């Protein structure tokens, strides 16, 4: 039913419009008198040290990769869940194999400490 997407499209336009209009209105009435000290990054009263865009810990990357794997799994599960009645026992078996393969990877990651956050 593509007509349903018209509603969504309108809603999204309204959402964008609301966001834009609020920004525009605020830009018109708010004061603006910047000075260099004010524009420094926030630090609790002492001068800041270094740049914030520094290297950060690799575990975030590991986590992102794990997420990618499992999120794809979830996306594959959605159509499977909807068509489950039609797929029957075959669908169950195939999905068991699929999930089992993923679980092996998950188990490996767990054992190797990819999930430890300290």
């Amino acid at each position, binding site marked *: 039913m593509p007509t349903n997407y018209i509603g969504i499209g309108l809603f999204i336009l309204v959402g*964008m419009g609301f*966001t834009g209009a609020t920004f525009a209105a605020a830009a018109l009435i708010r004061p603006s008198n910047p000075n260099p000290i004010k524009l420094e990054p926030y630090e609790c009263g002492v001068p800041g040290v270094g740049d*914030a*865009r*520094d290297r950060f810990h690799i575990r975030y990357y590991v986590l*992102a990769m794990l997420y990618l794997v499992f*999120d794809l799994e*979830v996306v594959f599960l959605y159509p499977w*869940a909807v068509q489950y009645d039609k797929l029957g026992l075959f669908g169950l078996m195939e999905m068991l194999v699929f999930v089992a393969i993923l679980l092996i990877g998950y188990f490996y990651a767990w054992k190797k400490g990819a999930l430890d956050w300290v």
Partner: protein
Amino acid sequence: MAYMTWFERRVIGRLQVRLGPNRVGIGGLLQPLADALKLFFKEDVRPARADRILFPLAPAISLFAALAAFAVIPFGPTTRIAGVEVPGGIANLQVGLLYLVGISSLGVYGLVLGGWSSGSKYSLIGGLRAAAQVVSYELILGLALVSVALVAGTLSLEGVVGGQANGLPYVILQPVAFLLYLVAAVAETNRAPFDLPEADTELVAGYHTEYGGMRFAMFFIAEYVNVITVSALAATMFFAGWSGPFLPGPHWLFIKMLAFLFLFVWLRATLPRLRYDQLMRLSWSVLLPLALINLLATAVVVAVTR
């Protein structure tokens, strides 16, 4: 939406044996308006190190994703007015659930871009934490909802409500999925006790440390819209949404949502914040296996009973 803040402050006030805002208007009812006006007139500081394009864009992305996600929640049954089918919500998509999960996950861009573009360490850490947390709990959310979709046999939210209106609400058929959803929803919206991205005791204000005025308000509103969306989704997926006796659909949905909103506020007033490693361990080592087991058990039971 704006009254969510009033609601939260009043309820927390009561829970902490104080009054909460009560001066502006009767019972403080005009407080949100006063806050909004104040934020309108605030100077909008853009730090020197901030990214010129992404810094203003991030809060807009956040709010936009939050608003767009709400579009598929059905408020009532599909009715026919003058021969035209009028959906009981803004839109009734065949893939409503997928749409909702997809759009709401766009919100994390707002958080992580906001955190990164500010050029402040607190913001960066807040943004990273937000990304890692939202991403981890999104899996749980997705898996919990898949179990429900498996029982319902459809991704259309109309269909899910319809399935419950004629039978048991899915909270009874899927209690584990409901609990998983609840935990994941609180974490997804960065609410206490999972509010680590903005943990004020360690990160000042997390990813929105550098934001002020209306831009801050965008993040703020986005968070509340998200809370409302996940509450509405919880009511829809697990408590039969708009369907109920006597009252018309939207009223029922509103009542159920309100119960969830109260729960959110209650949690915030009651529970202390988790430590970050506890948060991640809960998601990856406890909830994820639980969600998978629940899903597989559901699949087996569905296969046997149908």
